[in-house]
C-alpha cells in the first residue's frame, strides 16, 4: 500500500466559519445595543469552539473577514486571540479577507508575530498541512479590492498524492451578486483544483454553491438584508467522497426586516402577537417598514404604541413610517375643534399636506403634532 493510498483513507472533521468581523462598531445603533452586539460577536468564538467540540472537529477554518477592518486596534485582536486560546483543543486557522487584508506591518503582521499556540494566521498563498494528510490551501487577500482570483494558484498547488485538499478563500463567486465582482473566485475552483472542499467567506448568509463549495455565513448576524445568518458548517471529508456538510446555529440575535401593512390598529396587535410567537423579543432587532392608511388619531395611537411599547420590548426597533398615510377623518377634525383657531389651523395644514413634496410631508407631520399637542393640552 502506497503512502498516497494510505492518505486516501484519511478523513477530516472541521468547522467552517467566516465573516466574524470582530470590532464592528454598529455605530448607527444606540450605545447600549452596540455593546451587546459587539460582545455577541466575540462570544461567537466560544459558541464555535463548543460546536466544533460537539461535532468532533479539531479545526476551525475561518474564511476571511475575521476582523471588521484592517486595523481594528490591538485590543480587538488580542481579545479574540485570548478567546481562541481559551479553547486549546481546537486549532484555529485564520484567513485575511477583504475587510482585513494582510498588509506588511499591519494587523496580521502583529498578530502573526506572537500568536497563541493554537492559532495560525494564513498570510501567504502556500499549502499548509493542517494535520497529517490534510492540506489547507489558503488564498489570503492583501487588498480590499482585487480583480484577480486569489484562488487561481490552487489549480497548480502541489500536495502529496492522496492528501485531502481544503481550499480556504474569501470573495465573490463569479457571476454571483454584482456584475464585476471584487475578489472573484471561480465557481468551479473546487473541481479545477481538485479540492475536497472549498471553504468560502464574504457572503454573510449561509450558501451552498456546489457540492464542494460553500459559504458558511457569519456566525452572528449583523445586518437586516441577508437571510440565513448566525450559522456555521460542520464539514466531514472522507477522502475521495463528497464532503458531508451540516449547518449548526450559532447566532444569538435575530435581525428581522419586516413590512407591515396597517389599515387599523388591530393589524398592529396581530403583528405583535406573531412576533412574540416566533422570536424572543429582547434578542430581536427589528427593521419595520409600515405602509397603509390610518385615521389621524389611529396614526398617532399607532406611533405611540410602536414608540412607547414595541420599541422597548425588542432589542432595537427601526421604523419607517413614510409609507403610512394619515387620512384625517371628520372625527379627527372634530376632536380638535368644530370651529375656531385650532380647527382653522387643522384645515389649513390638512390642505397643505396634500402637496406631494417636502412641505406637504411637514404639513402632515404638523397636523399630527397638532393633534398630539391638543390631546396633551386637553388632558
Amino acid at each position: 500500500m502506497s503512502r498516497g493510498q494510505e492518505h486516501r483513507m484519511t478523513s477530516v472533521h472541521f468547522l467552517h466559519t467566516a465573516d466574524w468581523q470582530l470590532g464592528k462598531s454598529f455605530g448607527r445603533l444606540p450605545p447600549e445595543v452596540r455593546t451587546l452586539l459587539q460582545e455577541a460577536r466575540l462570544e461567537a468564538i466560544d459558541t464555535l469552539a463548543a460546536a466544533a467540540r460537539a461535532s468532533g472537529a479539531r479545526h476551525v477554518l475561518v474564511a476571511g473577514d475575521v476582523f471588521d477592518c484592517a486595523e481594528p486596534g490591538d485590543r480587538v485582536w488580542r481579545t479574540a486571540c485570548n478567546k481562541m486560546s481559551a479553547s486549546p483543543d481546537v486549532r484555529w486557522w485564520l484567513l485575511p479577507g477583504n475587510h482585513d487584508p494582510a498588509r506588511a506591518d499591519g494587523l496580521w503582521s502583529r498578530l502573526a508575530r506572537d500568536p497563541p499556540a493554537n492559532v495560525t494566521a494564513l498570510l501567504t498563498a502556500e499549502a499548509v498541512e493542517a494535520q497529517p494528510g490534510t492540506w489547507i490551501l489558503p488564498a489570503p487577500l492583501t487588498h480590499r479590492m482585487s480583480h484577480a482570483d486569489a484562488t487561481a494558484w490552487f489549480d497548480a498547488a502541489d500536495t502529496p498524492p492522496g492528501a485531502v485538499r481544503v481550499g480556504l478563500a474569501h470573495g465573490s463567486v463569479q457571476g454571483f451578486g454584482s456584475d464585476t465582482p471584487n475578489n472573484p473566485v471561480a465557481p468551479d475552483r473546487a473541481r479545477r483544483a481538485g479540492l475536497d472542499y472549498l471553504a468560502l467567506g464574504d457572503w454573510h448568509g449561509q450558501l451552498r454553491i456546489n457540492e464542494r463549495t460553500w459559504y458558511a455565513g457569519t456566525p452572528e448576524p449583523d445586518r437586516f438584508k441577508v437571510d440565513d445568518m448566525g450559522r456555521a458548517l460542520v464539514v466531514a471529508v472522507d477522502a475521495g467522497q463528497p464532503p458531508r456538510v451540516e449547518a449548526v446555529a450559532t447566532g444569538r440575535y435575530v435581525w428581522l426586516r419586516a413590512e407591515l401593512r396597517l389599515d387599523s390598529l388591530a393589524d398592529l396587535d396581530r403583528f405583535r402577537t406573531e412576533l412574540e410567537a416566533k422570536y424572543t423579543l429582547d434578542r430581536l432587532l427589528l427593521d419595520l417598514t409600515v405602509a397603509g392608511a390610518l385615521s389621524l388619531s389611529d396614526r398617532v395611537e399607532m406611533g405611540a404604541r410602536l414608540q412607547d411599547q414595541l420599541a422597548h420590548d425588542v432589542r432595537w426597533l427601526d421604523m419607517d413610517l413614510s409609507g403610512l398615510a394619515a387620512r384625517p377623518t371628520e372625527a379627527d377634525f372634530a376632536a380638535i375643534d368644530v370651529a375656531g383657531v385650532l380647527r382653522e389651523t387643522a384645515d389649513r395644514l390638512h390642505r397643505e399636506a396634500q402637496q406631494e413634496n417636502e412641505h406637504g410631508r411637514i404639513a402632515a407631520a404638523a397636523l399630527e403634532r397638532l393633534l398630539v399637542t391638543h390631546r396633551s393640552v386637553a388632558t
Partner: protein
Amino acid sequence: MKIRSLSVENFRKFRDPMQLEGFADGLNLVCEANEAGKSTVLEAMRAALFERHSSKGEHIKSLRPYDDDVSPTVELTFEIDGAPWTIHKRFLRREEARLTGPGGERLEGEAAEEHLQQLLGFTRAANRGADDESRGALGLFWVEQGAATALAAPGQSARRTLQEVLSAEVGAVTGGKRAAAVLNKVTADLEALQTKTGVSRGLLKAAEAAREAAEADLRDAEVDLRRYGETLDQLDARRGELRRLEQDEADRDVAGEEASLAADLTRAQQAAAARDVANAKVDAARQRRDTACALIEARRADRETLAEAQTAVAAAERAGADHGLELAPVRAAFNAAAELVEAARQEESAASERRDVAGAARDSGERLRILLAAFERLGEAQRLETAAKELETTLAGNLMTEAALTELENLERQVGSARATFEGGATRLVLELTPEGVSAVTVDSRPVAAAILQLVEPTRIEVRGVGAFVISPPTGAGASSQARLEAARADLASALSRLGEPDLLTARSRAAARRATTGELEISRRALMVACPADPALPAAAGLTALRAAIASEARPTAASGDATMLKAAADRAEAEHRNARTALDTAMTRREAAAARLSEADAERARRLQTLTQALSDRDRRASALASVETGDDALEREAERMTHKAARAGADADEAERTASVLDPAIADRKLKAYRQHRQRIAEDRSRLTIEIARLEEGAKTQGGAGPASRAEAAREALALSAADLERFTTEAAVLRLLKDTLDSATVEASRRFLQPVVSRVDPLVRQLIPSASLSFGEDMSPLGLTRGGRTEEAHRLSRGTQEQLAVLTRLAFAQMIVDKGRPASVILDDALVYSDDARFEAMLDILAESAQRLQIIVLTCRASLFRRMDATRLGLCR
C-alpha cells in the same frame, strides 16, 4: 344698567352721610370743585359693587376717613332692564352686605355678593381688593382720574365679556383657552429647539454641535488612517530600497569591481611613468645638442669681440696721442697767469706798506692836536677850581645858612608871642618914683629895677618907713607866661650864641652875605664843568678829575707837529693806491684760477684716455687668452650637435608612443573612478544604515498607529456622523414641523381676531371719525388699540399724543359699553375728570360724541370744570350732605 343714587357714610372724605341722587338716563354731570370728593364718589360706587364686605385688606381699611376707626358704609341703587336694585355694604366692623331686588327680595352677606357678581358680570375680588381683572367690563367703563390716558388692553375678564358679546355677534369662536394652550405648548416646544429669530438652541443646537463634532472626529480619524497607510507605504518602500541596496552591494562584490579598478590605476600609473622616462630622454638629448650649439655660437662671438677690442685699443692709443698735443698750450697759459698774479701781489704789498705809513703820520698829528687842547683846558680848569675853593672857605666860615636864619626868625617870633601873652595876663605895676624913692622902695626885698613891673605873683613892695604893699595878681596865669617868655628869650639867645652871632640883626646881614657867596660858588663850578667836557678822542670823560687822569702820563706838547689836514690827504691817497693794487691782484688771481681749471680738465681727459686704453688692452688680452684656452675645436662641437639632434628625434618618437599609451590609461581618471567607487560603497553603507534606522522607526510607528485601530475608528466615526446627521435631520424636521404649526396657528389666530374684532372696529370708527376725520383705529387680539390710520399712514397707538390717546381711550370704552348694552348686558360709563388733555376743538367734538352716546347709554361725568360742560344738555347733580 342705570345708576340711580349713591349714599355714603364714614367713607374717606365723607365722614358724615352724603347722598348723590337723581341720576338720570343719558348724560349726568357731577360738577364739584377740587377736593370736594368726586373721585371718592367713583371709589364708593366701586366699593359698593366690587369690594367684598368681609374683606379686611389694606385697601378696605383705606376707605375709612383718615385716622378714624369707623365702618365705611355705602349704598348704591341701580336699575337693570328697568328693575331697581339696591346694594348696601358696610365694611370692617359689623360688616354687612345686603342686596335688595326689584320685588323687595333681599340677599345678605356672601349670597348678596354672589348674586351681584352674576347680575353684573364680574368676579370675586381677591383678598387684597378688587382690580381691573375682577371688575370685568364694568370696571373698564368706570374710568378713574388719570387712568384713561393710556391705550391699554382691557383686563382678561373684561376681554372675556367683550369676546362673549362679540362671539354672539360675529358667530365665530376662537379656540379660546385650548387654542391658547396649544399655541403656548407649540411655542414652548419650538423655542426649546429654536429661538424666535430661528437660531438653534437646546436639542437642535446640541444635534448641530454633535454633527459638527462628528465631522471633525471623522476628519481626524481619516487623517490618522491615511497617515497609518502612508506609514505602511513608506515602510514598504524603504524595505524595497534596502533590498535593492543590499542586492547592488552583493552584485558589485561578486563582480570584483574594486579590484579591477585598482588594476586599472596601477597600469595607468606605469604608463605615465614610462612616458615620463621617454620625455626625460628627449629632454637630455635636446639639452646636449643645445649646449653644443651654444658653444659654437659663443666661440664665434668671442672672436668677434676680440676683433672689436683690438680696434678699441688702436682707437685709444690714437686718442692719447691727440690729447698730448692739446695739453701743452693749456699748461703754458696757466703758467703765464701765475706769473701775472705774483707781480700783482708784489705791487699790492708795496701799496699796502705805503698806505700804512701815511696813516700813521696822519694819526700822530691828530694826537698832538688833541693833547694840546686838553692841556689848555686843564689850565683854565685848575684856575676855576682854585676860585671855587676860596669861596668854599668863605662859606665854611659863615654858619648863617638859610636854615639857621629861618630858625632864628622863628625863635624871635616865639619871643614876641610869649611877651604878648605875658603882658596880657600880668598885673602891671607902674612905679613913678622919685629918685629918692628909689632906694626907699624895695620889691620883694630887692631894689626897684624898673619903673614898670609886670607882676605875676604876690609881690611885696616895701617902702621904707611906710610899710609894705603886697600886690597879688590873679592866681596862676601870670607866672607861666612869664616863664614861657623867659624860655623863649633863652632859646633865642642860645641859638645866636651857637651861630656866633651877637644879635638877630647881624645874623640877618651875615645870612645875606652867605647867600651871595653861595651864588658865586655855583657859577664857578659851572664854568669848571664847561672847561672840562668829555673828549672821546683823548679819550676822557667829562670832568676835571677825568681830564687830569687822561693826560697825567702825557707830556705837554710844545706845539702841533705838521699840518693834520695835509697828513690826512696823503693818507687817503695811499689808501686809494692800495685799493687799486688790490683789485689788480684779484683780477690776476681770477685769471689764474680759470687757467688752472682748464689745465685740470685737460689733465683729467688725459687720464681718462689712458684708462680706456688700459681697459681695451686688458680686454683684448683677456679675450685673446680665453679664445686660446678653449680645448674643443669647432669641428668637434659641430659633430656633437648633429649627433644629439638625431638622438633627440629618436627619443621623441619613443616619447610619443609612451604618451599615446599614457593618454589612454590616465591614472587621475583611474584614481577618480576608484575613489568614486569607494565613495559609492560608503554611501551605500550609510544609506543602508539610515534605511535600517528608518525602517525600525516606521515599524514602531506602524505598531503604535495600527494598535490604536485607525480603521475601526474611522468606520466608527463615519457611523457616528451618519447617526448624528440623522439626529440633526430629525430635530431639524421637528423644528420645521413646529414652526409650520406655530405659523399656521398664529396666522389663523390673527385671521380669527381680525374677523372677531370687526364689530369693535365698526363701532369705534364712526366715533373716531367724528373726532379725527378719515381716521380709523385698529385693534390687537387683546382688544388694545394698535394704531391710528389717517391719510394712508398708520401711527402706533402708544406713540400718539397724550390728548389723542385719552380721547381714543374714552371713545373705545364708549364703543365697548355700547356693544355690551346692545347685547342687553349691564354697562354704564363713568368718567372721572376725563378729557383734561383735549384742545378746544377736540373737546367740543368729544362733547358731541358723549351726547350722542348718552342717547343709548347712561354716562356719568365727574368734573371740576363746570364751564367746559356748560353747553351740554345733561342732568346736573350735586353732593348732598
